[in-house]
């Protein structure tokens, strides 16, 4: 016996939109079973994970703060994914953006350099991510190297580079030997006094609008979509496939880099190991949860950020491990992909009765 996927002829638009919702429900059910097997009450966990964060002001702010890097990275990734390019190294581009973006704030820390430092740092952060994403793009265009492997492996290079810098040349001499830099002066301002919402959050909605416009209204966005859908048609349309590969990776890398430097100048305030808690990987889930649509990804980022905050509360309230949150995010991605497949294809059971 084997299973075959048969393409469905007509898929109602509603089914496509509801698929991620169904996937979310399914993963909550699976998560509930896991929690029950761990001997805890699934109902209590559901309350802590999904309900409580939505009822408390500080948690809502925290969701927005966590959702921002996820959203920025996912929007960048969507350009790659739409063009059928598998950039799974956004985590590395995030770290590289944070690292390159931090050069100016580090150099100017403790001096009275003007307000130009912050915008320059943001630009350099985006540039750092962009250049780092250019490596897998150029390797693919020039030598046909799989971007999946190179982009993933470069994540570890970025992580170890960061590790080296904060333990070596960039270590704060007055930091009691902790692996961290000095605190930056150039920080994104808070949107409201005493809150957690910093100005970097504004990049999220702006990115949603710009991405929507580029994908739907520009010839470049059209080219990205066509080249993912049918590469030969894209060539027939006159789009240079190599140029599209490079452009998609540049956008993706720049967005991840921007997310990295926003995270550093928005809330952490210094470089240290573990500035990313896997945002670059989690953003892949966000991208698919949002069906690669900018507005969809906005919701996707908020939902996933909710699980992160809920997961932190669950550690405290229910003594559930952090790994459970990561497991849940993995289950969610699997369910989203499965739901997409089931919406587009019908499963047929083929029985092979051999004589």
């Amino acid at each position, binding site marked *: 016996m084997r299973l075959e996927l048969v393409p469905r*002829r007509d898929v109602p638009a509603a089914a496509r939109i509801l698929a991620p919702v169904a996937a979310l429900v399914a993963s909550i059910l699976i998560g509930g079973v896991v929690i029950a097997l761990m001997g805890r009450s699934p109902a209590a966990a559901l309350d802590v994970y999904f309900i409580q964060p939505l009822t408390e002001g500080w948690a809502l702010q925290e969701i927005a703060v966590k959702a921002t890097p996820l959203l920025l990275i996912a929007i960048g990734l969507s350009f790659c994914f739409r063009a059928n390019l598998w950039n799974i190294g956004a985590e590395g581009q995030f770290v590289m953006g944070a690292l390159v973006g931090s050069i100016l704030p580090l150099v100017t820390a403790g001096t009275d350099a003007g307000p130009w430092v912050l915008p320059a740092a943001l630009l350099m952060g985006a540039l750092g991510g962009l250049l780092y994403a250019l490596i897998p793009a150029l390797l693919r265009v020039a030598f046909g190297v799989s971007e999946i492997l190179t982009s993933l492996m470069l994540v570890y290079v970025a992580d170890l580079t960061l590790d080296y810098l904060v333990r070596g040349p960039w270590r704060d001499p007055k930091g009691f030997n902790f692996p961290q830099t000095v605190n930056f002066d150039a920080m994104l301002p808070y949107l409201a006094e005493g809150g957690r919402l910093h100005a970097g959050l504004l990049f999220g909605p702006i990115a949603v609008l710009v991405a929507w416009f580029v994908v739907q209204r520009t010839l470049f966005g059209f080219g990205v979509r066509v080249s993912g859908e049918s590469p030969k048609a894209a060539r*027939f349309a006159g789009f*240079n496939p190599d140029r599209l590969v490079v452009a998609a990776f540049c956008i993706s890398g720049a967005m991840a880099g921007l997310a990295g430097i926003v995270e550093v100048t928005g809330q952490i305030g210094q470089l240290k190991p573990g500035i990313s808690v896997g945002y670059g990987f989690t953003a892949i889930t966000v991208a698919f949860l949002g069906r690669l649509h900018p507005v969809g990804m906005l919701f996707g980022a908020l939902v996933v950020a909710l699980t992160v905050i809920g997961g932190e509360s669950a550690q405290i309230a229910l003594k559930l491990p952090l790994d459970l949150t990561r497991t849940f995010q993995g289950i969610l991605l699997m369910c989203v992909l499965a739901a997409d497949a089931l919406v587009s294809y019908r499963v047929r059971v083929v029985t092979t009765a051999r004589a």
Partner: protein
Amino acid sequence: MTREEAGGSPAGDAPLVALRGIVKRFGDLTANDHVDLDVRPGEIHALLGENGAGKSTLVKILFGLLQPNEGEIIWQGRRVTLDNPEDAADLGIGMVFQHFSLFENLTVAENIAVALPRGESLRDLDKRIAEVGARYGLALDPGRPVWTLSAGERQRIEIVRALLREPRLLILDEPTSVLTPQEADTLFVTLDRLAAGGCGLLYITHRLEEVKRLCQRATVMRAGKVVAACDPRVESVSRLASLMVGSEVVEVRPAPAHAAGPVRFELRDLSLAPTEAHGIPLAGVSLAVRGGEIVGIAGVAGNGQSELFAAMSGEVEAETQEAVRIDGQPVGRMGIDRRRRRNAAFVPEERNGHAAAPRFTLSENIVLSLHATSGVARRGLVNGAMARQLAAAVIKAFDVRKGGADPMAGTLSGGNLQKFVVGREILREPGVLVVNQPTWGVDAGAAATIRQALIDLAARGAAVVVISQDLDEIFAIADRIAVIHDGRLSAAHPAREIGREQIGLLMAGSGEGHAHAA
């Protein structure tokens, strides 16, 4: 030893296989509507019908690839169910597909070995291939890698594969579509020998001359139903054609007399290395097409047609600017969009995935090929309203039947999508049009519309190049005919002065020398 026994009484009346009331539905489409068919041992039975008539669906059911919704299959008087091709092969049903499934980098023997049932010994395989080859006239060198073989030789591998399992019934799906006329003659000898040996043959085609020559009985399908069963030897070709099409065959109107203008499209000693593995290098291709004429490029599939199309369109750029000229201007180093801006237009062979993106709407597919030459994209922005207007104009001018206001291209039938992708280019009034396989796999009505549009475009002064494997089509519309073989193009001969025989020789790579300037 059943083969020999059956051989004693060929064309016995007891059917080898009988299909009774076969119904197969795909969603709303009924591909087979209560189809009856039987094949006797020792006969060559033609299954006739246009593309989309339901022939392929029916034989896929007979070969166990599809399961019918209703009806039964009776094999030698016994009702059977065929869940998969292995069941069919176990009974003794073999099939030679239209599209080959061969591994290019493996040898002939290796390709045959992978298709043998599990557990079969490979020790004497070369000897067995030689034996079958000698008995049926299927010459093959077991040690040759497949990528060095011609289409005719590749087809022999498929036939030998089927014959090694000693089938009682052999199904052949459009076997001559990739052969030269001479290769087809060799195939017919093989098929006659097989039938004389008692094997029943089901021969699927839409080529009527072949049927008259080869087959003792014919079943004609149209729109999923059997519309006639007859003896093709006593029917006229035009009667068979009208049975197939359901009305008198539409002939194209010749263009009103018009003088050929200056040369508008020219290839000068164009040579190009292939961009894909096992692609065909183009060698010294020269061709000059005048305004007002249609030049047909005939040839067996896989002789460099797609490479030639890519070089003409600019999807692959030439090595020198001089190798390609549009209206006297060298454009060899220019990409497809810059050639379009010089008023050239192109229609590639595959409509789904090359000429059109199947999951994009029709108006988006307007943007696909017209963004460089019309206002649908200005300063990098797409004008959706204008694209929809242009799509509507193409749909109206070419009578494209579709569901919904702006449906996805992939939801259109083959004929309608082909009318759309050809019409999209013709409505621009290009000065040069290059079309690869303009009517492959489309119904007769759509084919006539498309061919007429090409003739009319040339009559208005455009230079038209039609690459086609369909000799009937080329003779119907071309003023001059050139033949492509192994990446080389023959001189273009006036269509009235060259016969099928001579074209057949050129298609097989013999005959006059190549690479004359036309």
